[in-house]
Structures are given as C-alpha cells and as structure tokens.
C-alpha cells in the first residue's frame, strides 16, 4: 500500500513536517499502531466472553466504524474496506445468533489486523489458532 511507506523502518514517534496535512497523516498512521493493539484487545475480550457477546461485539463494531471514517479521510482504502467488513460482521453477529457469525467476525478481525500491521510496516504475527490470542470463540 502506498501510504505504508511512511512507517517502513520508522522511528517510534511521528515525523513532523511543515505541511499540516502531512503532519495529520503522520499522526493518523501513528494512531493505527495503537488501534491495532486496541483491536487485538477487543478480539481477546470477545474470545474470552463467557456470556452474551453483544457488548464486545458492539465495541468492535464502533471501533471498526471509527477506523473506517479515518481510513476514508486519510485515504487508506485497504484499511477502510477491512474495517467495513468487520463492522458489518460484528453488527450481524450481534443481531443473529453469535455462534453462526463467529467465523465471519474472526476472519474480518484477522484481515483488519493484517492491514494494520502492513500499514505499521511490520508483518502480522497474530496467532489465530486454537491456542493463540483469539482462541475460544474463534474456533469456528
């Protein structure tokens, strides 16, 4: 992705520039790093949820929605598309029986985490297997 070059071999803090738009874009990409961590935590919360998954699903949906908006404005369509799919999957899972939608949420979540990892300039290392970060609810 074109914009990923900002963060290939990057320093931990965003590079500031004279251009306010460049600076905002840098801040956006810097935020994507924490967004990825946040999303992982949300995925874990969903996986560990014992009862009704409506609350973690709602949190994921809202988070994906926010990512979608930022991606649209800062022109990162890959992330926007992946966030859109996750938002829809989470919304559907919250409405229909969660068991039937777990796979689609898992797939969408994994895809978005991948896109975020690429945007952050490093490969995605999330283990989504049975013993990974997103174990139980995502066994499919």
């Amino acid at each position, binding site marked *: 992705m074109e914009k990923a070059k900002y963060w290939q071999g990057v320093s931990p803090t965003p590079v500031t520039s004279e251009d306010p*738009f460049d600076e905002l874009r840098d801040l956006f990409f810097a935020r994507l790093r924490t967004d990825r961590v946040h999303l992982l935590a949300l995925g874990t919360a969903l996986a560990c949820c014992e009862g009704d998954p409506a609350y973690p699903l709602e949190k994921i949906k809202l988070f994906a929605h926010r990512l979608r908006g930022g991606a649209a404005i800062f022109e990162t369509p890959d992330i926007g598309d992946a966030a859109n799919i996750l938002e829809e999957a989470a919304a559907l899972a919250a409405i229909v029986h969660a068991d039937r939608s777990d796979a689609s949420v898992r797939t969408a979540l994994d895809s978005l985490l991948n896109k975020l990892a690429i945007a952050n300039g490093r490969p995605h290392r999330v283990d989504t297997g049975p013993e990974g970060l997103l174990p139980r609810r995502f066994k499919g």
Partner: protein
Amino acid sequence: MHPELVRTSQNLTPVVSDAVVQKMGPLWQCRILVVDDDELIRAHLVAVLKLAGYDVYEAGSGEDALRVLSTAPCQIILTDWQMADMDGLSLCRNVRLKDDEGYVYVLMLTVRGTKRDVLVGLSAGADDYIVKGAPVEEILARLEVGRRITQLESSLRISNQENGRLSVTDPLTAAHNRRFLIRNLPRELERARRYEHPLAVLSCDIDRFKRVNDRYGHEAGDETLKTFVMRSAGCIRESTDWIVRIGGDEFVLILPETTLDGASSVANKLCQLLAAQPIKTIGGPLFVTVSIGVTAVETTDELASISVVELLRAADRCLYISKTLGRNRVTAASAACTSP
C-alpha cells in the same frame, strides 16, 4: 484552490482553478462548524476549510455543537453521523427545532453510504449528504452550495426585515405610521390591562399647518413635520413610548405606564419646546405651535371597559377642545370623563 489542498488528496484529478475560487466570492462571512468525534478527522477538515477561506469552528459531539452554536451562530454545519453523546441525526433534528435567526445548512459527512442511510440523514434535517472518502474538491463544492444558499437566505431575511420596518414607518419623518398604530395599540392596551398599568395617549395637531405649506412651500412644511417629530422624541422615553404620524400634520404619541398627570407634563413640555424655538426651514425660521389633547386610562374599570377606538376618540376630543380654546395649548382628561 490552495495548492495545499491538492497534496492531501493524491487521487484528485483536476485542480479547481483560481478563477473558480474568485467566483466563489469572499468566504469570510461564512462560518462553518465541523462536528466529528475523531479529533484527527476534525483537524484535517478544519485545516482544509481554513485554507479554503472559511471561518471554522469545531465540536466533538452533537452536544458540543449545540453549545458552540449557542455562542457562535454558524451558517453551515459539517457533521459526522455516528458520535458518542448526541449523534449527527439528533444534532440535525435539534438544529431544525431551534428558532434561531438565520438558516443553518447541514451537510452530513459520514462513512455510511447506503441509499437508506442517505434518506435517513436527509429526513433528519440534513440539506446534503456526502460519504467520507469523497474528494476534497467535492466537499468544498457542496459547501459552496451551502454558502450560496445561506447567503441568499441571509440577504432575503435582511431585506424582509427592512421591508417590514418600512411598511410601518412614515418615510418623511421616520415616525411610525397608522399601520403600526393599528397593529400595536391594541397590544399596548392589552398589556396595560394585564398588568393594570396606566396608558396615556396624546393627540397632536400642528396649528395652522396648511398656512406653512401655502406660504413657504411643501419643503418648509416637511421640515416642520420632521422637526416636530425630533422635538417630540426628545420629550418621551425612547425605549417605551412611540410616535405615530396619522396623516398630514396629525400625530399620536403613545405613552405606556404613564398617568394622566405624567402625560400632561410631557404634552406641556412639548408645547413649550415647539413654541419657544423657531424651526429652520428653506423659507426662513418659522414659529410653529401645537395643540394637544391628552387622555389616559388608569383604573382597573377604565382599562377593562375602554376600547382602542374609544381611547383615540377621547384624545381627539381633548385636542378639539384645545383647538377651540385658541390653539397652542394642552387639554387633558381621563378617558372616562370625555365619553360623550
């Protein structure tokens, strides 16, 4: 288009020419409120709009937006849909419910892009709808539509206000006219009844005004009328009392919360003021006098029983007495006493 804007959207094709920007006219009058709970998106939009020449305010939620609007009225709102606290739809509905002066043009900018979303947004009160990810040029072009509409609405509103003012104003003297009297004296009487406060009316007629016109010309007559109004204004309270030119040289002064004694004092002051100083006219200085009839309603019974017409007639009867007794004088009587 500012070159910076192009850099933010790498997929933009043609850049808006300077000529188009010039046609857009001065944007300094147009204030835009950007509402989005994502601070980076907000900052981006604010930067874009400032570069485009708009006066930009920002808010992080619908509630924040309403707070901003209460202190800094904005002509255009560019709002996200989904936000914590109050969302964009509720903001639209709240804006439409407000009875503020001036139309507020609402443009929704959201990632929700289905047909149904658009319809829901528009039915909530948005004027336009644009999906996030649209080129900066498109956002600016749509905002320009909003600017044109609000500017047109503003000029029409100001024009209507001015027409409304002119319709109740005498063009020569700038006093109120008969239409204003017909519209407002009933309200004044009703207010006096409700609070049981006195209300006084002065009926004035410039003595031998026809002679002024005949001897010195209409221009001198006009100057006389204008001076009369100016001197009358100096004798009454600016915030509550008002002067009406009924027609020709006949005037009525309405003095709310004024007793018969108080109104008589005002009338005597006006009578003396007019007679004491000559009026400068094109025909030379003129000594002019005025005859005044004064009446008032003070008691609860009087207030309850009298009508607007009867009140004016009572003042006219007193004026007639002043004229009969030799002009340049004041005759005062309560409305009840002057009943035929």
